[in-house]
């Protein structure tokens, strides 16, 4: 069976029942579980993506394009092999990680049965 692309960044090797990275094809995690569990995870300071806050000259306020940290954090998921950014989740601090995709692997195998590598 060939590798089946699931998103831009992950694919499934149906023979091995493994999630793989679409960039480097490294095996990441068993396919019957969400692939995010096989990623390296990092809480990225939002200002590194949205830029530093701009202080207001006339008072103590500042203008910010970054989410407020008490409301939302940026969580990045990387391929453990090549460091590709596979998905980004925006969550309040401590909110459970979203298990984005859980596929019915048996049905997927049935669907692709007979297709060559």
């Amino acid at each position: 069976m060939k590798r089946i692309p699931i998103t831009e960044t992950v694919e499934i090797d149906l023979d091995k029942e493994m999630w793989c990275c679409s960039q480097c094809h490294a095996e990441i995690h068993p396919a019957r579980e969400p692939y995010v569990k096989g990623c390296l995870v990092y809480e990225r300071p939002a200002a590194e993506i949205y830029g530093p806050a701009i202080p207001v000259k006339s008072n103590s306020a500042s203008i910010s394009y970054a989410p407020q940290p008490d409301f939302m954090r940026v969580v990045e998921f990387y391929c453990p092999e090549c460091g590709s950014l596979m998905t980004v989740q925006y969550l309040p601090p401590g909110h459970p990680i979203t298990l984005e995709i859980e596929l019915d692997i048996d049905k997927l195998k049935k669907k692709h049965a007979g297709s060559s590598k």
Partner: protein
Amino acid sequence: MPGAIDYEIGKRLHPEPPTREELDNMKDIEPTSAGIFLHKLHTIASEGNETLVKLGASTGCRWGDTACAIYTRSGDSAVCASGLYFHSVLGSTDVKYIMKYWLNDPSVGVKPGDAFFCNSPYIRGTHPPDMGIYAPIFYRGELLCWIGAVVHTGECGACEPGGMPTGSRSMYEEGLQVPALKIAENYRMKEDVLNYFNHMVRDPRALTLDIKARMACLRVVEKRLTPVIEKASPGYFTGVLRYVIQVTGEAARQRISTWNDGTYRFVQFIDTVGILHALTKVAVKLEKKGDHLYFDYDGSSPEVSDRVANSPGSGVIGVNTVYLLGHLFYDLPHNSGILEPMSFRLPDGSIVNASRESPKAGCAYVHEAGSLSVQYVLQNAIYATSPERTECAGNRGFDTLSYGGVNQYGEPFADAGAEMNGIGFGARSYLDGVDVAGAYFAPLTSEPGEVESLESHLPFLYLYRGFHQDSCGHGKYRGGVGMDYAVKVHAVPSTALGTWGFGSLITLTQGLFGGYGVPALPFLTVRGSNLDNMLSHTDPAIPSSARMLYQDQAIQGHYVLRGYPCVAEPTREGDLVAGGTGGGGGYGDPINRDPALVMKDLQNGVISHWAARNVYKVVYDEKRLAADAEKTKALRDAEKQDRKKRGKKFARFEKEWLQKKPSDEVIEYYGTWPETRYESFSYFGQWPGVKKGDK
């Protein structure tokens, strides 16, 4: 009981079962001829919609937030013109209400030449400014179908001007709310009803003109439809209306069956509860089984009984048709049939399925969060088979002005700003999103309006409007950017000015597959500014963009950060308000973006040098805007290595992460942390193991 408050009517969004007569009339339909006939019907609806836009006066009507639809006799939306599909589909419930309560009521009845005004949040699922008028179409005494004209008229007599009061504490502070009232009889407007409406609102001129625009739309459609029905036969006409709904459902089912079965999840947060900044959540779990989609909203935040934070369930479902019909299934006919292969489970007493009396003015916030969640679970489901249809969301926050007062001609005015129609759309799997594309809810027809036209009837002077730099989600393909704007109060001593929308404290619209979400959106007022003086001698320091205003702060005055939303407050002549709409989500890892595209974005001013260097990791010559391929590759390789160093294994990260929690103030209205579970649900469409009427 006739005219009862009907909690069930909103659940009838899905197509009704075909009647025996409709089934008989469908027997001889040949697809090609039916397609040609449907094109004719769509052209008629489009002419109606054009009439509506040309004649209306409110922001929503003038700039394309409109819908004109043809409904079956039983009320299912069959043909819709414009991009505002949810108004067309939600209109079904208005028509079904009329059919249930007034058709056979001797004191009301339904006759040729009648028209019914409807804007009840609990029936049509949206806020009171969304007003529809519906007219029956008879042929030789027989009721064949309904036609509808729906527009957001931005003033309805609520406790704040502009129709969407941030500070409302119950439905009774949200102005005019009419379940279904006969506004025309025998082709004449009922002046007593119109007079009553006009005494309820701040801007009777816009309300009247919008109502008359709807009536003109309906009369144009009726005039065009009648000879078409006569020529084709009434039976063929009603058969085709049912046929197109069924064909749409079947085609959607067929496409859904090609996607991978599985479970897909997404959570979206809202950073405002009325006037307070606090978190709520919309959670969506999609179970895709065979050719059917099951959307479950369990885990969403509980209803907030006395703050603007809630929506009726029908609106939460109906608004998905904007994405479904406008994007994912754009090539199918646009009607209620799209819902046929989809079912929804909404927890009772939650923000996505609130009770009747809580404020609904902010229902659009919940709609936007819900439709984002639905769009994102679907992206994960469709990529494997339809990567070309994969698309990040455009900004959903509205992020616009709300205002009211007396204009420069001494006339009352109140509305919401056309800026809401200037969002950026999401990146696609092969292309950047469209910059300043329109409104998410009317992607094909809306526009942010011409500044000169807006200045001609509002006491505003626009300092600038343009691409809102870096407002997109960055990615291999970036989202389209939104629009920045600054408005000075002009030629009146004072006016009430506030904002509507959300997303000043969070990333509202997220990215996809490694792409980033959009930034938080600042909004500020400069009180007591010296802008008039600067304008009087064409001071070169006058800002021409939000970035310039924020970074240089060349305008003197008191800078007050207000954000989205903020209650309209007196704003004096010369004061400046400045903000911007958000862009669309980014697609894919930003360090995979072609450096040449990054240079082009810099040239066009849509991204900053800061983003080019720090997010896209491009090394380039700033003067010539020429990327250095070798150094860029080295920098990007180093970033990948750095990610591997800083990233933690999932289990270790999760253990530390779950120790964190927002402050109690931030999650005061959130519900049980981290997830609220419910025992009672409302079902829209069939659900496994649940019989009709079960809770």
